């Protein structure tokens, strides 16, 4: 390739540069406008502008035709390869969709500060950098960028005690877990003398050989476990999940939506880069921890959701158990399992978009508009007032529950298949039984939607034309993915190309 002849080879970082410049521009725009009297209208224009920014960002990512397998720049701190390309595309489009969905919620909740949207864009920038980070320190900085934005997003409702409480909790525990990450990184640096993923890989290509026997492998293992714990914290997996219900419930719904759906994929990419790309030879030493975490999260997720009365806390437990299933594919340790992991994560994210779109796009017709957390029983009149929306919700719920004719079933099966292929029979049996229990709370929602005869209930505002277009797009995407799942598997295959040539 003629990469060397290109003078400014950092042109591949164009999406991130574009986002950064746009952020600067948007901040200036808002600062200048906010002193004027049009202040209250800013949030409207800023939402449209940032939707436009994210749209062009996705196009830029797509436009960047990848001619080589991988390419690292900025002194090997940032890497550009298939996995970062695909994950940036997914994260970008997820962020775009979530902004579209959030829009009406932000309007109805009167979140007039422009910072809200800017913080989301900052988080997207952090996620983009996280997807393409190639050493521990860059990864740490990227995680911090997105986490700091999330802390503020969680505490954004200044006059709500719950929101501030959620923000503080998220901040303290998030900072704690970040410090664990740093500690693990310092241990790894102390032993290996490098923080670069590729150098780690080259150094530890064969741990038991004589050349590398001088390395203190037990310290490496401890460091890896610290990093693992910190990342499991970020993913809200049991036993590190206890912050999640409080934080998810307290923070404004749009923020909850954003940090429940979008960042999971990027964090999984960091996990894969560290544990599969660099430290695959230590597979046995961290795998049992992951398996324990899987079992706990699947149990906590399916049993914890049974007694929830609020939609948001139900979704928290649902996300805990889903991350558990995704982690099954992560712990299987084969090439196919990575593919299935990404299939699962993509479908999880899109079904998350669908569920939260129902949550956010249907404002309740009540006097207290400030009520941000829907009770499950608030959905009682949905099927009477808008039954197309109710059918959409039912389809999505069956898909999330992993029920057969939906795409959620196919990806869940793929995950269990990887578990069986790597002889994790106990994990497969236990999690499949827990998934039956988890099904119960999804069908309880369907019961509330359809079966109950109530005359008194809360009505909704009719949804706007734009939102209905958005919802029907998501719905047809769901049906298309079931009819033609090959496209999903092929896209996920692109993710796993990186690991095809590595040590696996």
């Amino acid at each position: 390739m003629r990469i060397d002849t290109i003078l400014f080879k950092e042109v591949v970082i164009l999406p991130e540069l574009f986002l950064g410049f746009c952020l600067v521009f948007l901040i200036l725009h808002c600062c200048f406008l906010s002193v004027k009297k049009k202040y209250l209208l800013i949030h409207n224009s800023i939402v449209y502008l940032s939707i436009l920014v994210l749209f062009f960002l996705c196009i830029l990512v797509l436009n960047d035709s990848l001619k080589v397998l991988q390419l690292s720049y900025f002194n090997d701190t940032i890497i550009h390869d298939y996995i970062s390309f695909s994950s940036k595309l997914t994260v970008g489009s997820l962020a775009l969709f979530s902004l579209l969905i959030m829009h009406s919620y932000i309007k109805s909740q009167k979140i007039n500060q422009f910072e809200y949207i800017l913080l989301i864009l900052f988080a997207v920038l952090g996620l983009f950098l996280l997807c393409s980070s190639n050493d521990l320190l860059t990864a740490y900085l990227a995680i911090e960028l997105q986490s700091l934005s999330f802390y503020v997003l969680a505490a954004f409702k200044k006059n709500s005690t719950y929101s501030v409480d959620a923000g503080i909790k998220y901040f303290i525990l998030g900072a704690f877990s970040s410090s664990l990450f740093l500690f693990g990184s310092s241990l790894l640096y102390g032993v290996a003398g490098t923080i670069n993923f590729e150098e780690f890989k080259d150094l530890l290509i064969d741990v038991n050989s004589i050349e590398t026997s001088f390395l203190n492998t037990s310290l490496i293992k401890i460091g890896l476990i610290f990093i693992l714990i910190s990342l499991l914290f970020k993913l809200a997996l049991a036993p590190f999940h206890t912050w999640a219900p409080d934080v998810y419930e307290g923070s404004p719904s749009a923020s909850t939506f954003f940090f429940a759906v979008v960042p999971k994929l990027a964090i999984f990419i960091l996990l894969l880069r560290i544990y599969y790309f660099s430290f695959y030879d230590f597979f046995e030493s961290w795998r049992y921890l992951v398996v324990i975490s899987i079992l706990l999260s699947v149990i906590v997720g399916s049993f914890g959701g049974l007694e929830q009365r609020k939609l948001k806390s139900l979704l928290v437990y649902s996300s805990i158990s889903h991350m558990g299933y995704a982690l099954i594919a992560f712990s299987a340790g084969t090439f196919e399992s990575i593919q299935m992991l990404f299939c699962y994560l993509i479908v999880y994210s899109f079904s998350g978009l669908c569920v939260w779109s129902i949550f956010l796009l249907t404002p309740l017709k009540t006097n207290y508009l400030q009520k941000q957390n829907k009770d499950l029983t608030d959905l009682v009149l949905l099927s009477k007032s808008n039954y197309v929306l109710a059918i959409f919700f039912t389809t999505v719920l069956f898909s999330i529950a992993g029920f057969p004719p939906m795409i959620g079933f196919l990806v869940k099966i793929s995950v269990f298949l990887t578990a069986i292929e790597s002889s994790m029979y106990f994990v497969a049996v236990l999690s499949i039984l827990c998934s039956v229990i988890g099904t119960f709370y999804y069908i309880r929602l369907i019961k509330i939607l359809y079966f109950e005869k109530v005359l008194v209930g809360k009505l909704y505002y009719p949804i706007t034309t734009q939102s209905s277009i958005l919802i029907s797009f998501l719905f047809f995407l769901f049906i298309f993915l079931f009819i033609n799942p090959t496209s999903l598997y092929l896209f996920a295959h692109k993710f796993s190309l990186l690991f095809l040539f590595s040590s696996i």
Partner: protein
Amino acid sequence: MLYIKNILSYVFVLPLIGALILSFVPAQNKSLLKAVALNCSCLTFILSLSLWVFFNKSIGTFQFVEKFFWIPILNINFPMGVDGISLFFILLTTLLIPICLLASWDSIHFDLKKYLLSFLIMEFFLIGVFCVLDLFLFYIFFESVLIPMFLIIGIWGSRERKIRASYFFFLYTLLGSVLMLLSILYIYYQAGTTDYEVLLTFSFSPLEQKILWFAFFASFATKVPMVPVHLWLPEAHVEAPTAGSVILAGVLLKLGTYGFIRFSFPLFPEACFYFTPFVYALSIVGIIYTSFTAIRQSDFKRIIAYTSVAHMNLVMIGLFSFNVIGLEGAILQSLSHGFVASALFLIIGVVYDRHHTRMVKYYGGLVHSMPLYVLIFLFFTMANIGLPGTSSFVGEFLILTGSFKANTTVTFLGATGMIIGGCYSLWLFNRVAYGNLKIQYIKSYLDINKREFLIFFPLILGTLIMGIYPKIFLDSMHFSINMLVEFMYF
């Protein structure tokens, strides 16, 4: 121009096309909605009859075979075909759906569009279950049937207990079938494919067979239903609307027996022989226990529901006799049960539509006021007992003959079920049809109308034809069953 070899795929997609058309009809236009759904399902039935016409009776392999690609990456495709076993189950499904739609012609007062949609989609799934030749897709269709049935019980059920009933239905069957799912994954991992015809060439070790058989059993036995997991059935039957009960008794219970014949027998023959005493024991307990339970019920539908359990357990005995006579009898009895039990549920539906109660004690002396109704009721009561000349007699006779070869004691105990069956059926008929009119409860009576007669007519016809001249049914399934039995002993 219709190509004969593509009939099966036409039959398969026709309900879905009907559902698509239906979704564009405005929900207020109720007569058009009903017309579209009924015409579509009738067309499906006529087309599926042509399956039988063009069916080659002299070979036992799959016919009308077609193969579509679905997920080539994972080597999971969509082959479909019909043999002598699945042909009649498809016919039964396509016959019962128009009957169900006619049965609830006037009794659905709200959400009619969703109701018709769920029936058409259920027909699509059920035809899919019976014609697909891939284990994984079989599971998908097998489970998908739960969703429309869950909604039918939950939304259009009669009382407040319907929610509990739909939960029972959903979770029992789901819990049974996830074990089957795991074993399907194991089979896929071992064999690299889930294509049925390829799997037939694959043999599992005895231990694997036993574990896999048991996982499949957990799923199919819940559907049949066998004794410890039969609890969902009376609940679901009692709470479902009439048409829901008809399709539940008529087709959904057959999914279990069909699964045994299609998958458990040829894939795990050794485990089948190994577990035969276990199945016999459960079936005998099922027959005798549920027959006695049926005697002491006060709810009309619950009695018929328990007789369903007893009859389906008799079918299980026929299946596990592993000879041609027993298997043919089992399939014939399944079909006959599809006619008779459906008709009995429709008979309950007739009086329930008029008086809105299913308690037996409110009815009495109906013969004075509803003679035509009682005549039909008598006919199906006799068919339920197994009177010679009706389809049940042929089925039960073949089953008992087949199992006599395998195990005499089981035959003896199974035959006692028929005697108790005579008790509860006749007693129920006596209480409802004869005696004095209970004027204090029900003041006005109305005999069955033309629509209801037309519902019963095909069922009576089918029962009689199957009872008097069963050869036309047995001829078509003979070679397929012969092949299956030879395959098992091979």
